[in-house]
Protein backbone atom coordinates (compact mmCIF):
# COMPACT_ATOMS: atom_id res chain seq x y z
CA UNK A 1 0.00 0.00 0.00
CA UNK A 2 1.37 3.36 -1.01
CA UNK A 3 0.82 6.62 0.79
CA UNK A 4 -2.27 7.81 -0.94
CA UNK A 5 -3.27 11.34 -1.58
CA UNK A 6 -6.90 11.37 -0.43
CA UNK A 7 -8.08 12.76 -3.71
CA UNK A 8 -5.94 10.73 -6.10
CA UNK A 9 -7.46 7.50 -7.40
CA UNK A 10 -5.00 6.70 -10.15
CA UNK A 11 -1.33 7.54 -10.46
CA UNK A 12 0.81 6.60 -13.43
CA UNK A 13 4.47 7.15 -12.65
CA UNK A 14 7.31 6.99 -15.20
CA UNK A 15 5.51 4.49 -17.38
CA UNK A 16 7.31 2.94 -20.33
CA UNK A 17 5.92 0.47 -22.83
CA UNK A 18 8.43 -0.72 -25.39
CA UNK A 19 7.63 -2.81 -28.42
CA UNK A 20 10.35 -4.25 -30.64
CA UNK A 21 11.92 -1.03 -31.80
CA UNK A 22 9.82 1.81 -30.45
CA UNK A 23 8.20 3.13 -27.30
CA UNK A 24 4.40 3.34 -27.29
CA UNK A 25 4.58 5.06 -23.87
CA UNK A 26 7.71 6.88 -22.75
CA UNK A 27 8.20 8.19 -19.22
CA UNK A 28 4.50 8.87 -18.96
CA UNK A 29 3.13 10.49 -15.79
CA UNK A 30 -0.53 11.07 -15.06
CA UNK A 31 -2.92 11.41 -12.12
CA UNK A 32 -6.65 11.04 -11.96
CA UNK A 33 -8.58 12.46 -9.03
CA UNK A 34 -11.66 11.05 -7.36
CA UNK A 35 -14.88 12.22 -8.99
CA UNK A 36 -13.06 13.62 -12.00
CA UNK A 37 -13.50 13.10 -15.72
CA UNK A 38 -10.15 13.25 -17.46
CA UNK A 39 -10.21 13.41 -21.25
CA UNK A 40 -7.25 11.76 -22.93
CA UNK A 41 -6.74 13.20 -26.39
CA UNK A 42 -4.09 12.57 -28.96
CA UNK A 43 -3.49 11.69 -32.58
CA UNK A 44 -3.75 8.12 -33.85
CA UNK A 45 -0.85 5.99 -32.66
CA UNK A 46 0.03 8.40 -29.84
CA UNK A 47 -0.17 5.64 -27.21
CA UNK A 48 -3.61 6.28 -25.69
CA UNK A 49 -4.94 2.74 -26.02
CA UNK A 50 -1.61 1.28 -24.88
CA UNK A 51 -1.84 3.41 -21.74
CA UNK A 52 -5.41 2.44 -20.85
CA UNK A 53 -4.74 -1.25 -21.55
CA UNK A 54 -1.85 -1.13 -19.08
CA UNK A 55 -4.03 0.54 -16.46
CA UNK A 56 -6.66 -2.17 -17.03
CA UNK A 57 -4.01 -4.83 -16.49
CA UNK A 58 -4.13 -6.22 -20.04
CA UNK A 59 -0.69 -5.07 -21.13
CA UNK A 60 2.36 -5.47 -18.98
CA UNK A 61 4.35 -2.23 -18.63
CA UNK A 62 8.03 -2.34 -19.61
CA UNK A 63 8.84 -0.05 -16.67
CA UNK A 64 7.13 2.35 -14.30
CA UNK A 65 4.31 2.12 -11.82
CA UNK A 66 0.55 2.20 -11.95
CA UNK A 67 -1.04 2.89 -8.58
CA UNK A 68 -4.77 2.49 -8.16
CA UNK A 69 -6.41 3.55 -4.91
CA UNK A 70 -3.02 3.37 -3.21
CA UNK A 71 -2.06 -0.07 -4.52
CA UNK A 72 0.59 -0.83 -7.14
CA UNK A 73 -1.15 -3.12 -9.63
CA UNK A 74 2.04 -5.15 -10.09
CA UNK A 75 2.03 -6.15 -6.40
CA UNK A 76 -1.72 -6.19 -5.97
CA UNK A 77 -3.39 -7.11 -9.29
CA UNK A 78 -6.67 -7.92 -7.51
CA UNK A 79 -7.24 -4.18 -7.08
CA UNK A 80 -8.05 -3.98 -10.80
CA UNK A 81 -11.33 -5.95 -10.89
CA UNK A 82 -12.32 -4.44 -7.53
CA UNK A 83 -11.90 -0.87 -8.70
CA UNK A 84 -11.94 -0.70 -12.49
CA UNK A 85 -14.42 -1.27 -15.24
CA UNK A 86 -13.15 -0.76 -18.71
CA UNK A 87 -14.42 -0.57 -22.26
CA UNK A 88 -11.85 -1.10 -24.97
CA UNK A 89 -11.62 0.49 -28.37
CA UNK A 90 -12.42 -2.91 -29.86
CA UNK A 91 -15.47 -3.89 -27.87
CA UNK A 92 -16.05 -7.45 -26.74
CA UNK A 93 -19.51 -8.79 -26.20
CA UNK A 94 -20.59 -12.39 -25.93
CA UNK A 95 -22.28 -12.42 -29.32
CA UNK A 96 -24.50 -15.43 -28.78
CA UNK A 97 -26.08 -14.11 -25.60
CA UNK A 98 -29.11 -11.86 -25.64
CA UNK A 99 -28.62 -8.19 -24.84
CA UNK A 100 -30.12 -8.65 -21.38
CA UNK A 101 -28.11 -11.78 -20.61
CA UNK A 102 -24.81 -10.14 -21.52
CA UNK A 103 -25.45 -7.11 -19.30
CA UNK A 104 -27.06 -9.08 -16.46
CA UNK A 105 -24.32 -11.74 -16.43
CA UNK A 106 -21.64 -9.04 -16.39
CA UNK A 107 -23.36 -7.53 -13.35
CA UNK A 108 -23.40 -10.95 -11.68
CA UNK A 109 -19.70 -11.51 -12.48
CA UNK A 110 -19.02 -8.11 -10.92
CA UNK A 111 -20.53 -9.38 -7.67
CA UNK A 112 -24.05 -7.94 -7.79
CA UNK A 113 -26.95 -9.93 -6.41
CA UNK A 114 -29.32 -11.31 -9.05
CA UNK A 115 -31.94 -8.72 -8.05
CA UNK A 116 -29.55 -5.77 -8.30
CA UNK A 117 -28.05 -7.02 -11.57
CA UNK A 118 -31.57 -7.22 -13.00
CA UNK A 119 -32.53 -3.79 -11.66
CA UNK A 120 -29.44 -2.09 -13.05
CA UNK A 121 -29.69 -3.88 -16.43
CA UNK A 122 -33.27 -2.76 -16.96
CA UNK A 123 -32.58 0.77 -15.72
CA UNK A 124 -29.62 1.27 -18.06
CA UNK A 125 -31.43 -0.23 -21.07
CA UNK A 126 -34.32 2.14 -20.39
CA UNK A 127 -31.97 5.12 -20.12
CA UNK A 128 -30.74 4.39 -23.64
CA UNK A 129 -34.32 3.74 -24.87
CA UNK A 130 -33.38 0.26 -26.05
CA UNK A 131 -35.39 -1.93 -23.72
CA UNK A 132 -37.02 -3.30 -26.88
CA UNK A 133 -33.67 -4.93 -27.77
CA UNK A 134 -33.61 -6.83 -24.46
CA UNK A 135 -34.19 -10.28 -25.95
CA UNK A 136 -32.26 -9.85 -29.17
CA UNK A 137 -29.15 -11.97 -29.72
CA UNK A 138 -26.19 -9.58 -29.80
CA UNK A 139 -24.93 -11.09 -33.05
CA UNK A 140 -27.99 -9.65 -34.82
CA UNK A 141 -27.39 -6.03 -33.71
CA UNK A 142 -25.76 -3.14 -35.56
CA UNK A 143 -22.27 -1.89 -34.68
CA UNK A 144 -23.65 1.16 -32.87
CA UNK A 145 -26.11 -0.94 -30.85
CA UNK A 146 -23.33 -3.35 -29.86
CA UNK A 147 -21.27 -0.42 -28.62
CA UNK A 148 -24.16 0.81 -26.46
CA UNK A 149 -24.62 -2.70 -25.01
CA UNK A 150 -20.90 -2.89 -24.35
CA UNK A 151 -20.98 0.50 -22.61
CA UNK A 152 -23.88 -0.57 -20.39
CA UNK A 153 -22.12 -3.85 -19.53
CA UNK A 154 -19.01 -1.82 -18.71
CA UNK A 155 -20.66 0.51 -16.21
CA UNK A 156 -23.01 -1.98 -14.55
CA UNK A 157 -21.96 -2.35 -10.92
CA UNK A 158 -20.58 1.23 -10.96
CA UNK A 159 -16.91 0.87 -10.10
CA UNK A 160 -14.78 3.71 -8.73
CA UNK A 161 -12.74 4.02 -11.90
CA UNK A 162 -14.34 3.82 -15.33
CA UNK A 163 -12.05 3.62 -18.34
CA UNK A 164 -13.60 4.28 -21.73
CA UNK A 165 -11.65 4.08 -24.97
CA UNK A 166 -13.57 5.91 -27.69
CA UNK A 167 -16.97 4.86 -26.34
CA UNK A 168 -19.09 6.85 -28.83
CA UNK A 169 -17.61 5.43 -32.05
CA UNK A 170 -20.42 4.24 -34.36
CA UNK A 171 -23.09 5.76 -32.07
CA UNK A 172 -25.81 8.04 -33.40
CA UNK A 173 -26.10 11.61 -31.96
CA UNK A 174 -29.09 10.74 -29.72
CA UNK A 175 -27.28 7.88 -27.97
CA UNK A 176 -24.02 9.85 -27.79
CA UNK A 177 -25.89 12.58 -25.96
CA UNK A 178 -27.43 10.04 -23.53
CA UNK A 179 -24.00 8.55 -22.88
CA UNK A 180 -22.39 11.91 -22.09
CA UNK A 181 -25.31 12.81 -19.79
CA UNK A 182 -25.01 9.49 -17.96
CA UNK A 183 -21.27 9.98 -17.44
CA UNK A 184 -21.91 13.40 -15.93
CA UNK A 185 -24.46 11.89 -13.53
CA UNK A 186 -22.05 9.10 -12.55
CA UNK A 187 -19.38 11.66 -11.73
CA UNK A 188 -21.69 14.08 -9.93
CA UNK A 189 -23.85 11.62 -8.01
CA UNK A 190 -21.53 8.76 -7.07
CA UNK A 191 -18.12 10.44 -7.60
CA UNK A 192 -16.68 7.74 -9.83
CA UNK A 193 -13.61 8.82 -11.76
CA UNK A 194 -13.65 8.50 -15.53
CA UNK A 195 -10.69 8.24 -17.87
CA UNK A 196 -12.09 9.02 -21.28
CA UNK A 197 -10.20 8.47 -24.51
CA UNK A 198 -12.00 10.21 -27.33
CA UNK A 199 -11.54 11.88 -30.69
CA UNK A 200 -14.84 13.64 -30.21
CA UNK A 201 -13.21 16.72 -28.73
CA UNK A 202 -16.13 19.08 -29.36
CA UNK A 203 -18.59 16.90 -27.42
CA UNK A 204 -16.12 16.11 -24.66
CA UNK A 205 -15.43 19.80 -24.01
CA UNK A 206 -18.53 20.31 -21.90
CA UNK A 207 -17.96 17.06 -20.00
CA UNK A 208 -14.34 16.76 -18.96
CA UNK A 209 -12.81 18.37 -15.90
CA UNK A 210 -9.28 18.12 -17.21
CA UNK A 211 -7.67 17.21 -20.48
CA UNK A 212 -4.41 15.37 -21.08
CA UNK A 213 -2.91 15.46 -24.54
CA UNK A 214 -0.66 12.57 -25.39
CA UNK A 215 1.81 12.63 -28.24
CA UNK A 216 4.47 10.10 -29.10
CA UNK A 217 3.79 8.24 -25.88
CA UNK A 218 4.11 11.20 -23.50
CA UNK A 219 1.69 13.61 -21.88
CA UNK A 220 2.56 16.92 -23.49
CA UNK A 221 -0.30 19.09 -22.23
CA UNK A 222 -2.39 18.76 -19.09
CA UNK A 223 -4.96 21.11 -17.64
CA UNK A 224 -8.57 22.16 -17.57
CA UNK A 225 -10.20 22.87 -20.95
CA UNK A 226 -10.14 26.54 -19.98
CA UNK A 227 -6.40 26.46 -19.31
CA UNK A 228 -5.65 24.69 -22.58
CA UNK A 229 -7.87 27.05 -24.51
CA UNK A 230 -6.26 30.06 -22.88
CA UNK A 231 -2.85 28.79 -24.00
CA UNK A 232 -4.15 28.76 -27.54
CA UNK A 233 -6.34 31.82 -27.08
CA UNK A 234 -3.88 34.07 -28.77
CA UNK A 235 -5.08 32.41 -31.94
CA UNK A 236 -8.48 32.93 -33.48
CA UNK A 237 -10.05 32.11 -36.80
CA UNK A 238 -11.40 34.39 -39.50
CA UNK A 239 -13.86 32.35 -41.51
CA UNK A 240 -15.36 33.83 -44.64
CA UNK A 241 -17.60 32.43 -47.32
CA UNK A 242 -18.03 33.50 -50.93
CA UNK A 243 -20.90 33.19 -53.38
CA UNK A 244 -20.97 29.71 -54.80
CA UNK A 245 -21.11 30.68 -58.46
CA UNK A 246 -18.04 32.90 -58.36
CA UNK A 247 -14.56 31.63 -59.15
CA UNK A 248 -12.09 33.32 -56.80
CA UNK A 249 -8.60 33.82 -58.26
CA UNK A 250 -6.28 31.35 -56.55
CA UNK A 251 -3.47 33.89 -56.15
CA UNK A 252 -5.78 36.20 -54.13
CA UNK A 253 -6.52 33.42 -51.67
CA UNK A 254 -2.84 32.52 -51.43
CA UNK A 255 -1.87 36.15 -50.86
CA UNK A 256 -4.20 36.27 -47.86
CA UNK A 257 -2.81 33.00 -46.46
CA UNK A 258 -6.31 31.52 -46.37
CA UNK A 259 -7.04 27.80 -46.33
CA UNK A 260 -10.02 26.34 -48.19
CA UNK A 261 -12.50 24.65 -45.83
CA UNK A 262 -15.06 23.69 -48.45
CA UNK A 263 -16.12 24.88 -51.92
CA UNK A 264 -17.27 28.29 -50.67
CA UNK A 265 -15.61 28.69 -47.26
CA UNK A 266 -12.08 29.80 -46.37
CA UNK A 267 -10.30 30.18 -43.06
CA UNK A 268 -7.35 32.15 -41.74
CA UNK A 269 -5.84 31.43 -38.30
CA UNK A 270 -4.41 34.61 -36.83
CA UNK A 271 -3.02 35.96 -33.58
CA UNK A 272 -5.40 38.31 -31.75
CA UNK A 273 -3.10 41.32 -31.91
CA UNK A 274 -3.10 41.29 -35.71
CA UNK A 275 -6.81 40.48 -36.07
CA UNK A 276 -7.83 44.04 -36.92
CA UNK A 277 -5.15 44.41 -39.59
CA UNK A 278 -6.02 41.04 -41.16
CA UNK A 279 -9.74 41.88 -41.35
CA UNK A 280 -8.83 45.17 -42.97
CA UNK A 281 -6.54 43.33 -45.37
CA UNK A 282 -9.35 40.96 -46.40
CA UNK A 283 -11.86 43.76 -46.86
CA UNK A 284 -9.50 45.78 -48.99
CA UNK A 285 -8.31 42.83 -51.07
CA UNK A 286 -9.56 42.04 -54.56
CA UNK A 287 -11.83 39.29 -53.19
CA UNK A 288 -13.91 41.70 -51.11
CA UNK A 289 -16.72 41.96 -53.70
CA UNK A 290 -17.15 38.17 -53.63
CA UNK A 291 -17.44 37.78 -49.84
CA UNK A 292 -20.90 36.80 -48.67
CA UNK A 293 -20.22 36.78 -44.90
CA UNK A 294 -17.33 36.87 -42.52
CA UNK A 295 -17.01 35.51 -38.94
CA UNK A 296 -14.45 35.70 -36.17
CA UNK A 297 -14.34 32.51 -34.10
CA UNK A 298 -12.72 32.30 -30.69
CA UNK A 299 -10.89 29.06 -29.94
CA UNK A 300 -12.66 25.93 -28.68
CA UNK A 301 -11.09 22.90 -27.02
CA UNK A 302 -10.87 21.37 -30.49
CA UNK A 303 -8.83 24.37 -31.63
CA UNK A 304 -6.66 24.19 -28.52
CA UNK A 305 -6.09 20.50 -29.21
CA UNK A 306 -5.21 21.11 -32.86
CA UNK A 307 -2.92 23.93 -31.81
CA UNK A 308 -1.24 21.70 -29.20
CA UNK A 309 -0.62 18.80 -31.56
CA UNK A 310 0.63 21.08 -34.30
CA UNK A 311 3.31 22.53 -32.01
CA UNK A 312 6.71 21.13 -32.83
CA UNK A 313 7.28 18.26 -30.46
CA UNK A 314 10.88 18.19 -29.46
CA UNK A 315 12.05 16.79 -26.15
CA UNK A 316 15.48 15.86 -27.33
CA UNK A 317 14.53 12.20 -27.79
CA UNK A 318 14.91 11.43 -31.44
CA UNK A 319 11.48 10.01 -32.20
CA UNK A 320 11.58 8.17 -28.87
CA UNK A 321 13.07 5.18 -30.68
Amino acid at each position, binding site marked *: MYLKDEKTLLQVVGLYKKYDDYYANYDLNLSLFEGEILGLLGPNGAGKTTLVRQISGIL*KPSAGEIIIDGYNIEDCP*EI*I*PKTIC*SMGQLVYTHRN*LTVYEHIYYTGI*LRGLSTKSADEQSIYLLERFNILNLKNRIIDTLSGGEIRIISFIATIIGFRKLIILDEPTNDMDPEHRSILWKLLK*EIRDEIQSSILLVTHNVAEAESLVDRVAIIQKGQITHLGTPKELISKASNMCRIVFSVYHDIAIPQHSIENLGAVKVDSTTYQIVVAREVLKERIKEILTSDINPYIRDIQILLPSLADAYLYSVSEKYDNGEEGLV
Partner: protein
Amino acid sequence: MTIKELKSNALYRSQNKLKLLNQWVLIKSAFADLRLNWKFSFLVVLISPISFLAFLYIFVGDNNNYMIYALSGNMVMSMVTGTMLSLGQEFGVLKEIRGFDFYAVLPIRRFNLVVAYVTKATIIGLPSYLIIFLIGKYLLKLDVYFNISLLLVLLIAGYSLSAVGVFIGLRSRDAKQANIITQIVQPIIVFVSPVFIPESALPPLLLYIAHIFPTRYAAIAIRNALEGSFDWISILVLCVFCLISFIWIEKHMDWRIN
Protein backbone atom coordinates in the same frame (compact mmCIF):
# COMPACT_ATOMS: atom_id res chain seq x y z
CA MET B 1 -34.57 6.65 -10.08
CA THR B 2 -31.17 8.35 -9.97
CA ILE B 3 -27.77 6.74 -10.41
CA LYS B 4 -27.09 7.46 -6.73
CA GLU B 5 -30.22 5.57 -5.65
CA LEU B 6 -29.45 2.73 -8.04
CA LYS B 7 -25.97 2.36 -6.57
CA SER B 8 -27.05 2.65 -2.97
CA ASN B 9 -29.78 0.03 -3.56
CA ALA B 10 -27.26 -2.42 -4.98
CA LEU B 11 -26.73 -5.63 -3.04
CA TYR B 12 -23.58 -7.70 -3.39
CA ARG B 13 -23.28 -11.44 -2.94
CA SER B 14 -21.10 -13.21 -0.40
CA GLN B 15 -17.79 -14.60 -1.64
CA ASN B 16 -18.92 -18.25 -1.57
CA LYS B 17 -22.14 -17.56 -3.46
CA LEU B 18 -20.14 -15.40 -5.83
CA LYS B 19 -17.79 -18.23 -6.81
CA LEU B 20 -20.57 -20.72 -7.53
CA LEU B 21 -22.78 -18.30 -9.41
CA ASN B 22 -19.83 -16.96 -11.42
CA GLN B 23 -18.96 -20.49 -12.52
CA TRP B 24 -22.57 -21.18 -13.46
CA VAL B 25 -22.85 -17.93 -15.44
CA LEU B 26 -19.61 -18.63 -17.31
CA ILE B 27 -20.73 -22.16 -18.21
CA LYS B 28 -24.10 -20.85 -19.41
CA SER B 29 -22.35 -18.19 -21.50
CA ALA B 30 -20.04 -20.79 -23.03
CA PHE B 31 -23.05 -22.96 -23.93
CA ALA B 32 -24.75 -19.97 -25.57
CA ASP B 33 -22.41 -20.57 -28.51
CA LEU B 34 -24.63 -23.52 -29.36
CA ARG B 35 -27.68 -21.29 -29.86
CA LEU B 36 -26.78 -20.37 -33.37
CA ASN B 37 -24.68 -23.33 -34.48
CA TRP B 38 -25.65 -26.36 -32.40
CA LYS B 39 -26.38 -28.49 -35.46
CA PHE B 40 -22.99 -27.77 -36.92
CA SER B 41 -21.20 -28.40 -33.59
CA PHE B 42 -23.02 -31.68 -33.17
CA LEU B 43 -22.13 -32.81 -36.70
CA VAL B 44 -18.47 -31.96 -36.16
CA VAL B 45 -18.18 -34.03 -32.98
CA LEU B 46 -20.11 -36.90 -34.58
CA ILE B 47 -18.89 -37.22 -38.15
CA SER B 48 -15.16 -37.22 -37.46
CA PRO B 49 -15.09 -40.17 -34.98
CA ILE B 50 -17.68 -42.19 -36.88
CA SER B 51 -15.88 -41.84 -40.22
CA PHE B 52 -12.57 -42.70 -38.55
CA LEU B 53 -14.18 -45.75 -36.96
CA ALA B 54 -15.57 -46.86 -40.33
CA PHE B 55 -12.16 -46.37 -41.92
CA LEU B 56 -10.47 -48.55 -39.27
CA TYR B 57 -13.17 -51.19 -39.58
CA ILE B 58 -12.48 -51.48 -43.31
CA PHE B 59 -8.76 -52.03 -42.69
CA VAL B 60 -8.80 -53.97 -39.44
CA GLY B 61 -11.95 -55.99 -40.03
CA ASP B 62 -13.92 -57.44 -37.16
CA ASN B 63 -10.96 -58.35 -34.95
CA ASN B 64 -12.50 -57.64 -31.54
CA ASN B 65 -9.24 -56.66 -29.83
CA TYR B 66 -8.16 -54.17 -32.47
CA MET B 67 -11.64 -52.74 -32.84
CA ILE B 68 -11.74 -52.06 -29.10
CA TYR B 69 -8.56 -50.03 -29.65
CA ALA B 70 -10.29 -48.21 -32.50
CA LEU B 71 -13.34 -47.57 -30.35
CA SER B 72 -11.45 -46.36 -27.27
CA GLY B 73 -8.96 -44.44 -29.44
CA ASN B 74 -11.79 -42.51 -31.01
CA MET B 75 -13.18 -41.58 -27.64
CA VAL B 76 -9.77 -40.48 -26.35
CA MET B 77 -9.12 -38.44 -29.46
CA SER B 78 -12.46 -36.66 -29.09
CA MET B 79 -12.43 -36.03 -25.37
CA VAL B 80 -8.80 -35.38 -24.52
CA THR B 81 -7.25 -33.92 -27.63
CA GLY B 82 -10.56 -32.61 -28.98
CA THR B 83 -11.07 -30.64 -25.79
CA MET B 84 -7.50 -29.36 -25.90
CA LEU B 85 -8.01 -28.41 -29.55
CA SER B 86 -11.24 -26.62 -28.85
CA LEU B 87 -9.79 -24.82 -25.82
CA GLY B 88 -6.72 -23.66 -27.76
CA GLN B 89 -8.92 -22.34 -30.55
CA GLU B 90 -11.47 -20.71 -28.22
CA PHE B 91 -8.73 -18.91 -26.29
CA GLY B 92 -7.00 -17.93 -29.54
CA VAL B 93 -10.27 -16.37 -30.71
CA LEU B 94 -10.81 -14.67 -27.33
CA LYS B 95 -7.35 -13.17 -27.55
CA GLU B 96 -7.94 -11.95 -31.10
CA ILE B 97 -11.31 -10.32 -30.39
CA ARG B 98 -10.02 -8.79 -27.12
CA GLY B 99 -12.17 -11.06 -24.97
CA PHE B 100 -9.48 -11.09 -22.28
CA ASP B 101 -9.78 -7.30 -22.01
CA PHE B 102 -13.36 -7.96 -20.90
CA TYR B 103 -12.61 -10.79 -18.47
CA ALA B 104 -9.42 -9.27 -16.99
CA VAL B 105 -11.35 -6.48 -15.26
CA LEU B 106 -13.96 -8.83 -13.80
CA PRO B 107 -13.44 -10.45 -10.40
CA ILE B 108 -13.33 -13.99 -11.76
CA ARG B 109 -10.60 -16.58 -11.58
CA ARG B 110 -8.92 -17.63 -14.82
CA PHE B 111 -9.55 -21.18 -13.78
CA ASN B 112 -13.34 -20.52 -13.87
CA LEU B 113 -13.19 -19.50 -17.51
CA VAL B 114 -11.22 -22.63 -18.41
CA VAL B 115 -13.67 -24.87 -16.54
CA ALA B 116 -16.55 -23.25 -18.45
CA TYR B 117 -15.05 -23.96 -21.86
CA VAL B 118 -13.85 -27.49 -21.00
CA THR B 119 -17.26 -28.35 -19.56
CA LYS B 120 -18.88 -27.17 -22.76
CA ALA B 121 -16.50 -29.23 -24.94
CA THR B 122 -16.98 -32.31 -22.72
CA ILE B 123 -20.75 -32.15 -22.69
CA ILE B 124 -20.99 -31.48 -26.43
CA GLY B 125 -18.86 -34.59 -26.96
CA LEU B 126 -21.03 -36.90 -24.80
CA PRO B 127 -23.59 -37.80 -27.54
CA SER B 128 -20.78 -38.75 -29.88
CA TYR B 129 -19.23 -41.09 -27.29
CA LEU B 130 -22.61 -42.69 -26.77
CA ILE B 131 -23.12 -43.18 -30.50
CA ILE B 132 -19.61 -44.61 -30.91
CA PHE B 133 -20.32 -47.02 -28.06
CA LEU B 134 -23.67 -48.06 -29.55
CA ILE B 135 -22.15 -48.55 -33.02
CA GLY B 136 -19.41 -50.69 -31.50
CA LYS B 137 -21.75 -52.81 -29.42
CA TYR B 138 -24.73 -53.28 -31.74
CA LEU B 139 -23.50 -52.63 -35.27
CA LEU B 140 -19.97 -54.03 -35.11
CA LYS B 141 -21.06 -56.61 -32.52
CA LEU B 142 -18.01 -55.94 -30.35
CA ASP B 143 -17.76 -57.52 -26.94
CA VAL B 144 -17.98 -54.23 -24.97
CA TYR B 145 -19.81 -53.24 -21.80
CA PHE B 146 -20.93 -50.02 -20.20
CA ASN B 147 -19.18 -49.41 -16.91
CA ILE B 148 -19.69 -46.34 -14.69
CA SER B 149 -15.93 -45.68 -14.86
CA LEU B 150 -16.39 -44.98 -18.59
CA LEU B 151 -18.57 -41.99 -17.75
CA LEU B 152 -16.12 -40.89 -15.06
CA VAL B 153 -13.17 -40.98 -17.47
CA LEU B 154 -15.15 -39.17 -20.17
CA LEU B 155 -15.97 -36.39 -17.71
CA ILE B 156 -12.49 -35.84 -16.27
CA ALA B 157 -10.22 -36.64 -19.20
CA GLY B 158 -10.96 -33.42 -21.07
CA TYR B 159 -9.59 -31.37 -18.16
CA SER B 160 -6.29 -33.28 -18.12
CA LEU B 161 -4.85 -31.50 -21.15
CA SER B 162 -6.67 -28.20 -20.59
CA ALA B 163 -3.44 -26.43 -19.58
CA VAL B 164 -1.89 -27.30 -22.95
CA GLY B 165 -4.91 -25.86 -24.78
CA VAL B 166 -4.85 -22.71 -22.66
CA PHE B 167 -1.11 -22.32 -23.17
CA ILE B 168 -1.46 -22.59 -26.96
CA GLY B 169 -4.42 -20.19 -27.04
CA LEU B 170 -2.67 -17.57 -24.92
CA ARG B 171 0.73 -17.79 -26.57
CA SER B 172 -0.54 -17.75 -30.14
CA ARG B 173 -0.57 -14.49 -32.02
CA ASP B 174 -4.18 -14.97 -33.12
CA ALA B 175 -6.91 -17.56 -33.62
CA LYS B 176 -5.43 -18.74 -36.91
CA GLN B 177 -2.06 -19.50 -35.34
CA ALA B 178 -3.73 -21.21 -32.36
CA ASN B 179 -5.67 -23.37 -34.80
CA ILE B 180 -2.53 -24.42 -36.68
CA ILE B 181 -0.55 -25.21 -33.51
CA THR B 182 -3.33 -27.28 -31.95
CA GLN B 183 -3.66 -29.24 -35.21
CA ILE B 184 0.07 -30.02 -35.03
CA VAL B 185 0.06 -30.94 -31.34
CA GLN B 186 -3.02 -33.20 -31.52
CA PRO B 187 -1.61 -36.06 -33.63
CA ILE B 188 1.67 -35.96 -31.69
CA ILE B 189 -0.15 -36.50 -28.39
CA VAL B 190 -2.37 -39.21 -29.88
CA PHE B 191 0.22 -41.24 -31.73
CA VAL B 192 2.99 -41.31 -29.13
CA SER B 193 0.57 -42.99 -26.73
CA PRO B 194 -1.13 -46.37 -26.92
CA VAL B 195 -4.36 -44.79 -28.10
CA PHE B 196 -4.89 -46.56 -31.42
CA ILE B 197 -1.84 -48.80 -31.23
CA PRO B 198 -1.36 -51.46 -28.52
CA GLU B 199 1.50 -50.78 -26.10
CA SER B 200 3.26 -53.93 -27.29
CA ALA B 201 3.46 -52.46 -30.80
CA LEU B 202 4.95 -49.13 -29.69
CA PRO B 203 8.74 -48.59 -30.07
CA PRO B 204 10.47 -48.78 -26.63
CA LEU B 205 11.27 -45.05 -26.59
CA LEU B 206 7.64 -44.08 -27.23
CA LEU B 207 6.57 -46.56 -24.60
CA TYR B 208 8.45 -44.51 -21.99
CA ILE B 209 7.47 -41.13 -23.42
CA ALA B 210 3.80 -42.17 -23.37
CA HIS B 211 3.89 -42.20 -19.56
CA ILE B 212 3.93 -38.40 -19.45
CA PHE B 213 0.80 -38.01 -21.58
CA PRO B 214 -2.69 -38.28 -20.06
CA THR B 215 -3.88 -39.82 -23.33
CA ARG B 216 -2.18 -43.09 -22.30
CA TYR B 217 -4.10 -43.33 -19.03
CA ALA B 218 -7.39 -42.23 -20.61
CA ALA B 219 -7.01 -44.89 -23.32
CA ILE B 220 -6.16 -47.65 -20.81
CA ALA B 221 -8.99 -46.64 -18.47
CA ILE B 222 -11.52 -46.58 -21.31
CA ARG B 223 -10.40 -49.95 -22.67
CA ASN B 224 -10.70 -51.46 -19.21
CA ALA B 225 -14.11 -49.85 -18.77
CA LEU B 226 -15.27 -51.23 -22.12
CA GLU B 227 -14.06 -54.66 -21.03
CA GLY B 228 -16.06 -54.27 -17.83
CA SER B 229 -13.42 -53.42 -15.23
CA PHE B 230 -12.89 -50.30 -13.10
CA ASP B 231 -9.31 -49.02 -13.55
CA TRP B 232 -8.80 -46.91 -10.42
CA ILE B 233 -5.09 -46.37 -10.99
CA SER B 234 -5.47 -44.82 -14.46
CA ILE B 235 -8.35 -42.68 -13.23
CA LEU B 236 -6.24 -41.53 -10.29
CA VAL B 237 -3.35 -40.62 -12.59
CA LEU B 238 -5.78 -38.69 -14.81
CA CYS B 239 -6.94 -36.79 -11.73
CA VAL B 240 -3.31 -35.88 -11.00
CA PHE B 241 -2.96 -34.56 -14.57
CA CYS B 242 -6.13 -32.50 -14.03
CA LEU B 243 -4.74 -31.13 -10.79
CA ILE B 244 -1.44 -30.18 -12.45
CA SER B 245 -3.37 -28.49 -15.26
CA PHE B 246 -5.52 -26.50 -12.84
CA ILE B 247 -2.57 -25.44 -10.69
CA TRP B 248 -0.63 -24.33 -13.75
CA ILE B 249 -3.61 -22.38 -15.07
CA GLU B 250 -4.18 -20.65 -11.74
CA LYS B 251 -0.53 -19.89 -11.00
CA HIS B 252 1.02 -19.30 -14.38
CA MET B 253 -1.68 -18.43 -16.87
CA ASP B 254 -1.36 -14.69 -17.42
CA TRP B 255 -3.94 -12.83 -19.48
CA ARG B 256 -1.56 -9.96 -19.78
CA ILE B 257 0.36 -9.47 -22.99
CA ASN B 258 4.01 -8.57 -22.85
